[in-house]
């Protein structure tokens, strides 16, 4: 049986001076970190994390690739991606034809990435940033025009890109994104 239960006992209180030694341990740890805090804070507006392209951020549509099959609307768990009817005349035949275009509503989108994974022609792709906020609700219910181009990203204008790498000694270390050398 690979997993087996192991019964353990709590470390017993080591006599009268346990309290004193415990206090001394806690204070030395506290002072050790007071002297050298090993900070991992992201100074947000001046720096921002440049996420790797796989990150599930805002979603953008490429109209040329889209074959209007509405499978992305069918799989959306939050009914955020829905289809709207758009009367378009076919350039070759000139006839008026009603097509279904996907339209996303960020008031409900949960960024699960199902629509990107299910699209048969990879017409939807995710943009690797997420921190955009709105002051009135209407701006979040996107029409087709805003859905086709990536949303403008205010943080990129204000800060320098930074990346976090996992490190043995400090846990996370901030590293400048482009050159990758030590921050």
């Amino acid at each position: 049986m690979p997993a087996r239960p192991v019964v353990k006992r709590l470390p017993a209180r080591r006599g009268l001076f346990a309290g004193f030694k415990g206090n001394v341990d806690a204070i030395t740890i506290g002072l050790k970190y007071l002297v050298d805090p090993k900070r991992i804070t992201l100074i947000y507006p001046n720096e921002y994390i440049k996420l790797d392209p796989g990150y599930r951020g805002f979603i953008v549509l490429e109209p040329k690739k889209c074959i209007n099959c509405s499978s992305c609307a069918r799989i959306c768990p939050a009914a955020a991606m829905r289809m709207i009817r758009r009367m378009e005349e076919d350039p070759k035949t000139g006839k008026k034809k009603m097509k279904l275009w996907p339209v996303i509503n960020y008031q409900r989108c949960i960024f699960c990435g199902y629509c990107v994974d299910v699209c048969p022609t990879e017409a939807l792709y995710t943009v690797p940033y997420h921190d955009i906020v709105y002051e009135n609700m209407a701006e979040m219910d996107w029409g087709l025009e805003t859905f086709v181009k990536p949303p403008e990203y205010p943080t990129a204008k204000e800060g320098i890109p930074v990346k976090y790498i996992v490190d043995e000694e400090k846990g996370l270390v901030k590293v400048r994104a482009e050159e990758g050398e030590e921050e």
Partner: protein
Amino acid sequence: MSVWVYGEQKSELGLEGTITRKIEEDLYEVFIGPQHPGSGHMRIIIRIDGDIIVEADPDMGYVHRTMEKLAEGREWIKNVPLFERMAIQDACNVTVSYIIALERILDIEPPPRAKYLRTLLCEINRIAAHLYGFGIFGVFIGHSTMYMWSFADREVMVELAERLTGARLTHSYPIPGGARKDIPQDFPQAARKAVRYFRRRLEEYRKIFLDNPVTRKRLEGVGIIPKKIAAELGVVGPVARASGIKYDARLAEPYDAYDEVEFEVPVFEEGDALARAWVKFEEIKQSLRIIEQAVDWLERHPREAPIHDRFWAKSPPLWKKVFEAEGRVKLLPLMANMKLPPGRAMARSETARGEIIYYVESDGKSTPYRVRIVSPSARNAIVFKYIAPGYKVMDLPTIYGSIDYFPPEADR
């Protein structure tokens, strides 16, 4: 009104002979309400006599988001992100047993690579959820450094999960038949570094939190649940294992890769808040061992699509191209409204707070006929009513934090 009260002095024969005594009415009733730092998203109505709690009644339901009713209206795969919102700190542990139940109805077995990927993410989430539990526990007993340190180190595990799946908390990673993404190239090296960092860091946690005389005095001997009462109340996870019950869902019914990885299940006997903290502390060490073994296995074995052939054999060439390029498994459009054969299945998995159980019944349509979820915190809520009476008012946050009670998961 007569109230079921039993505290320290109850009889040995468990609960059949519960002592009921009339409560005089002039007790001081305090609402530890939804807007209160001592209780999460719920209200605990306590009647106190001076500083002693005489009766505690949890008033739950403030985060009841009707998961079971919505699940009956949604297709099978749409329920994965829905059930994940119960406890988004360990998203993988909460949804993996729903997926196992679906696979039992479909009668398919995910490929071994998918099993190891799921176990890897489940263990990363378990450590993140335990550290979240320590953080909130630190806030409840006023130790803000514990909150900050455990959340700082939780970011290491969240960073690993973000590299693996592309999202910080809500990965909705398991899908019927496998997992959605394979590990990126530099992942094994980063994971090993994180494991070595945690092994050194846990020593400092013990010094400033578990062995700190103030915290130790606050936790020892508080909220004691004897072994017989724990079995009678049906408590789960670290709360049961701290009272001597040798039970873990990964031990009782091993799922995914848990029957191939080597790990221990820590069990303590004292049953008080300190034992519960130590159970979680030891479980983090065991999860680090599992992560190391899973990463070694994944590195040794070739990279092939971590999904069952039923969804991968017939997929168009674009699927294979995207998997080679990004390691991402695309879903077949038929998965949106896939029909399951009629059948009933039950599956359980061990989340950081305890064991979650899904009962799934399908009648052949594309939406489930009935999904019944019993989450760990729902089964731990009974601790407030039967264990809190008899202790002091300042022990209520200690008991609340030690059983790691999370209302969104308890109210479903």
